[in-house]
């Protein structure tokens, strides 16, 4: 009798068809969007010849410029703040002495992932509206604060995963070799944690850059970020300019992910070799 193979999904009927269908559904719209960003005419669905006109238009659009700068500033500050908080939280949960309510704390840190975003958005709107009328400040601070907060779990998860996978005897070995608590952190824990920190920061940055719902509720007049600007365009006149902006964002995020892949692979290779 022939040897029975272990269960293999690839051998199940229809596997290829289902896989192909999933990939088409995932990537066809993105490909179409990118293609039509090079459309020469105004139409979103009718090809009128290749042109870079919409990229040029977007580039010279002062509203787009301002929204881009706003998006990047908010994302950059939110990334730094949330990553810092995430690293400290991960260290407190993974290395410090066990404390009462540690698992409750874990749930609280990850809460923004569980609560529907619209609920967070509405509650922030209410609170910030009250604060705004009380203290009179209506700058970018509210958006930065909101983004920093909801980015924390995204920065936290890779850092925590990395910390949990780390061999604790390495830190004991450092302490055994006369390293003080701070030296252990600086020379052993942090260098080994770094890929996790980088991944967390990237996730936080992309999450902030991409946010629509919370930003739409929290922003004051004239505080459009790139995504809320694009949303606004949809209500007025949707042109391939929106496609062009989306394509640039796509290229940017792909570049970021690929760069991270190579950086972490190099690190990994160095450690493995």
């Amino acid at each position, binding site marked *: 009798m022939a040897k029975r193979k272990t269960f293999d999904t690839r051998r199940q009927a229809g596997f290829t068809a289902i896989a192909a269908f999933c990939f088409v559904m995932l990537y066809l719209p993105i490909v179409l969007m990118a293609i039509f960003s090079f459309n020469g005419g105004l139409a979103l669905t009718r090809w009128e010849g290749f042109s870079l006109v919409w990229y040029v238009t977007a580039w010279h659009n002062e509203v787009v410029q301002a929204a881009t700068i706003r998006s990047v500033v908010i994302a950059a500050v939110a990334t730094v703040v949330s990553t810092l908080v995430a690293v400290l939280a991960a260290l407190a949960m993974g290395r410090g002495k066990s404390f009462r309510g540690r698992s409750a704390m874990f749930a609280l840190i990850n809460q923004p992932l569980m609560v529907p975003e619209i609920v967070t958005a509405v509650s922030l709107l209410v609170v910030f509206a009250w604060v705004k009328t009380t203290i009179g400040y209506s700058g970018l601070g509210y958006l930065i604060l909101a983004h920093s907060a909801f980015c924390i779990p995204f920065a936290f998860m890779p850092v925590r995963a990395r910390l949990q996978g780390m*061999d604790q005897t*390495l830190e*004991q*070995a*450092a302490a*055994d*070799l006369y*390293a003080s608590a701070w030296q252990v952190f600086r020379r052993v824990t942090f260098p*080994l944690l770094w890929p996790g920190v980088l991944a967390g920061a990237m996730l936080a940055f992309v999450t902030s850059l991409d946010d629509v719902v919370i930003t739409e509720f929290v922003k004051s007049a004239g505080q459009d970020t790139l995504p809320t600007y694009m949303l606004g365009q949809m209500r007025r006149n949707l042109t391939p300019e929106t496609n062009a902006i989306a394509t640039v964002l796509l290229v940017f995020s792909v570049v970021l992910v690929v760069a991270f892949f190579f950086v972490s692979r190099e690190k990994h290779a160095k450690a493995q070799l």
Partner: protein
Amino acid sequence: MIEVDRIHVRFGEGPGAFIALNDVSVTINESEFFTLLGPSGCGKTTLLRSIAGFIHPSGGAIRLAGQNILSLPPFKRPVNTVFQNYALFPHMTVAENVGFGLEMLGRPRAEIAATVEEMLALVKMTAMASRRPSELSGGQQQRVALARALAPKPKVLLLDESLSALDLKLRKEMQIELKRLQSETGITFIFVTHDQEEALTMSDRIAVMSAGTIRQIGTPREIYDHPRERFVADFIGDTNFVQANLSADGTVELPGGARIRAGLQEDAAVAARPVTLVIRPEQTVLEQVPEKAPLSGVLENVVYCGTDTHYHLMLADGARFVVRRQNNPARPVTFEKGQRLGIGFEPQAVQVLEG
């Protein structure tokens, strides 16, 4: 030199608490190769980690050259550890690993470089100085871990089951290597192992531990030849236990009725009582004529083990007894299964235990 004084360690609270070390006391001499030997869970690693500073005993003292080090954090204790999994820093080269301790002590660069070179030469790893730990084999990692722990010239080196991850041949090599390093550096080694053979070959003295206490401390020879209790005799080497009766005249009646004289422990009283005799398998011989020997048994099984052959016999009282005989093709012997054979031994081969 290092004085462990009634150390008490418990894990957990209340009735579910586990006592890992129950008022353990031991004094380890300067430049001694001292081994903590016992089965897993006996407390040997807990004792080692208490000395290193990773476990905080609830009672007792650990004195190093007279000073109680129990209140010092690990990084202020002049002891270094070779960890079971080596715990080499993966993001540093071999040389950086070895120099880490000296760097943390704030020694000048030139001194660090010189010591690193010296240590790598000592463990024969000079050629690997710029490699990363993941580029090394298990045996090489072991050497680097040793060099790293020796580089700050600690007063005491702690080795936590440091050879258990190596294969047998490499382990034998490293046993000799460790012993050489210890005598060359003159540093006190405290070695933790569950491997009794490893303990016997390397140690100056051994502490046999069980259930959070030290059962016996002595040289390998003392521990092997004169085990003070059944646990020690059983844990170290292969052993036959024979139930016998001690008479008031100091003779012992064996199963089968023969009487022999056996050396009692110095502090043991001479009074009629049941005792257990410890007889090592390699200190016995088989006799074709049962009547010539103090013990006899029926041969049940013959196990060939390369260097020697184990003969399993059943004694008159039903107990099993193993005789070990070195194989020598020049002097072949044939014993038939089911044959009744004599078991011969010298009186010195017998240890008398209570009960």
